[in-house]
């Protein structure tokens, strides 16, 4: 609605003419100026400007919904009330049924922890018919790091849903629903996002996976402001894709080591701590998510995958629904699974920390288990 043409808004004729004469053609142009700037520019009185603005605003402003109608609508139109079950029971329970539709869910963790494994499992699940708990639709998998393995995908399928994947034609159909894109540059990625938008409009795609977002952005623009800007465009675009098509969007994020310039406190905290003993804020791990704080604000659910004292954990680090829980998990030939469905509540900012201790042993162990 932001780019609505002023000529389509039923303003008084005289005012509408003034707007078009001054080359203010869209609502966006008009509303980006202050009242007094408009008065200057259009050379009309304050009352006229005000009434014109209020008319434009009324048309551009989106209509309201009560939260109740929003909820009813979700439950009526959407499969499973707008949550996609991951098959990990404890996690699903914590997230009110699974990965929410219409918003971003992020997986962040060190290399080799199982992010891609989780993504593979999710895309497989989404392609399944609804009576198997799937979404019965296509999945778009944007594989930036070339880590997608169709063999592994089918292995997971065969182990977790033998009754489907033992039939060759069923297996073919399910795997055929997963479309893998391999953009090599940010520009290509942007282009494929635009294409995806069209597909989403035709309502054929039920889930979008981007593995990984960080590889794309950090690969191209190493530094500063430019990176922030390209990132913020992508953030809003992906968010709006998720929103209008109401599908779950899963994005992975890498980790990097903490820089000395990563702030974790406010100026007032620093002042109050002079001479005080309170400095336990140092994390024992030095890892942080690769994409910074602006990205972290944009994701609705953040799941941290980490390794700690020989065990792997999946932690619900940010969620509007779930309490901060940690679940131990492992990766077997049938994909990711939880060792326990009872999450352990994590206190404090610990939930955001990303540990990577004794990680190599687990991976080696896990690989042995696979073969």
């Amino acid at each position, binding site marked *: 609605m932001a780019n609505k043409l002023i000529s389509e808004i039923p303003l008084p004729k005289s005012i509408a003419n003034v707007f078009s004469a001054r080359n203010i053609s869209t609502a966006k142009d008009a509303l*980006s100026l202050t009242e007094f700037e408009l008065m200057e520019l259009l050379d009309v009185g304050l009352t006229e400007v005000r009434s014109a603005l209020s008319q434009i605003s009324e048309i551009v402003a*989106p209509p309201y919904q009560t939260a*109740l109608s929003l909820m009813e609508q979700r439950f009526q139109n959407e499969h499973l009330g707008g949550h996609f079950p991951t098959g990990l029971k404890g996690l699903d329970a914590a997230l009110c049924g699974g990965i929410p539709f219409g918003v971003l869910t992020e997986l962040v963790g060190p290399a080799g922890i199982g992010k891609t494994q989780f993504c593979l499992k999710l895309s497989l699940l989404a392609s399944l018919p609804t009576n198997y708990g799937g979404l019965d639709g296509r999945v778009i998998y944007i594989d930036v790091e070339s880590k997608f393995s169709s063999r592994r995908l089918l292995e997971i399928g065969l182990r977790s849903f033998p009754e489907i994947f033992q039939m060759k034609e069923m297996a073919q159909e399910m795997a055929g629903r997963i479309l893998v894109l391999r953009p090599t540059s940010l520009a290509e990625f942007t282009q494929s996002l635009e294409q995806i938008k069209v597909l989403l409009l035709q309502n054929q795609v039920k889930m979008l996976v981007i593995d990984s977002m960080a590889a794309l952005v950090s690969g191209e623009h190493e530094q500063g402001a430019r990176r922030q800007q390209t990132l913020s465009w992508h953030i809003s675009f992906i968010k709006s894709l998720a*929103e209008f098509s109401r599908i779950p969007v899963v994005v992975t994020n890498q980790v990097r080591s903490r820089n000395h310039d*990563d702030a974790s406190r406010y100026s007032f905290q*620093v002042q109050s701590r002079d001479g005080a003993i309170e400095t336990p804020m140092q994390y024992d791990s030095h890892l942080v998510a690769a994409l910074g*704080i602006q990205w972290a604000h*944009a994701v609705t659910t953040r799941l941290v995958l980490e390794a700690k004292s020989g065990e792997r954990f999946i932690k619900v680090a940010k969620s509007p629904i779930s309490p901060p829980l940690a679940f131990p998990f492992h990766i077997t030939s049938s994909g990711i699974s939880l060792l326990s469905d009872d999450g352990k509540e994590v206190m404090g900012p610990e939930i955001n920390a990303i540990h990577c201790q004794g990680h190599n042993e687990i991976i080696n162990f896990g690989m042995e288990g696979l073969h």
Partner: protein
Amino acid sequence: MEIWRLPISASQRGKLISSGYTSLSSLSSISSSDLARELKVSESEAMNILKVASHSRGSETSNASCSIVEGAQSAWDMLHDEESLMHITTSSADLDNILGGGIHCKEVTEIGWSSLSLIVNSVLKYKLTTAFSSESIIFMLIGGVPGIGKTQLGIQIAVNVQIPNDFGGLGGKAIYIDTEGSFMVERAFQIAEACIEDMSEYNRFLRKDFQECKIKMLPQDILENIFYFRICSYTEQIALINYLDKFLSEHKDVKVIVVDSVTFHFRQDFDDMALRTRVLSGMALKLMNLAKRFSLAVVLLNQVTTKHTEASFQLALALGDSWSHTCTNRIVLYWNGNERYAYIDKSPSLRSASAAYSVTARGIRNSSSSCKRIKMM
């Protein structure tokens, strides 16, 4: 007062000045037809100019007897008004406390306060109908790192504003403006449910015969009274704030506007930073105006970014310094050890203090480990 301050169009102003009318007094004794002839404009236009002129002069000189400056209010009257204003609880007693709760409560509340303080802390929070009130606390900005609970606090406020008058609440409705798409209706339902449970529990304590006054509210009713707007661009955000004026005059029972988050769209697609500042402060002014006219609270949630100061990087609220001037109250949510804390960063009437809170399945509550641990800084 001079001509250039009149809210008239530039060409009219130009004509007035070039014809020698530079001050308002020069317009005081001229008829509209004379003016029309001199400025070479239509008579109705001249009439309009005179109307505007006399209006602004009127506000300058008349009414001198009843109050010295029209529109002004003495500090004493303001205090009176502030005290009679109602409060919305945050459901965390500690948080309410540092927000000036328990001081400006209404009569019902004070009774409840003393008699209940000995009973259960969890019940007490509903008597603490506090926070966000009094003229000065009405406009408030809350910021914090991702996952600290900003959206949770926003939803909690939208639910708590509906606590009926009998329970010391406002019994109002809420507008929730969602710019990020982070509002979760399931979560709102959970919080509403917990809120109703707490109210009936409180009922049992205060009135022994709890059969009589059963809570007739359902979580559905609470959700029904949250007006949800989803904003997808900054243009829509500006348009909506403009339109709220009309919306509020049709829905007079709205008592709180929550904007989550106010900065999201302004941090993308804006190239001209000076324009951004102007548009933002214009928006803030309009919101403040709404808060005053319809006597409601405005709660803005803000994102956090990193900022380079004094040779080190620190967290700071997004959108820079000029924006932080526009907000009367600023509250920063942060981690302190293992607890979530709220800190009053800026407020004209409250002391700088911090309090612990926690986010539970039932919503925002007091921090479990601290019943009475408010630290004054």
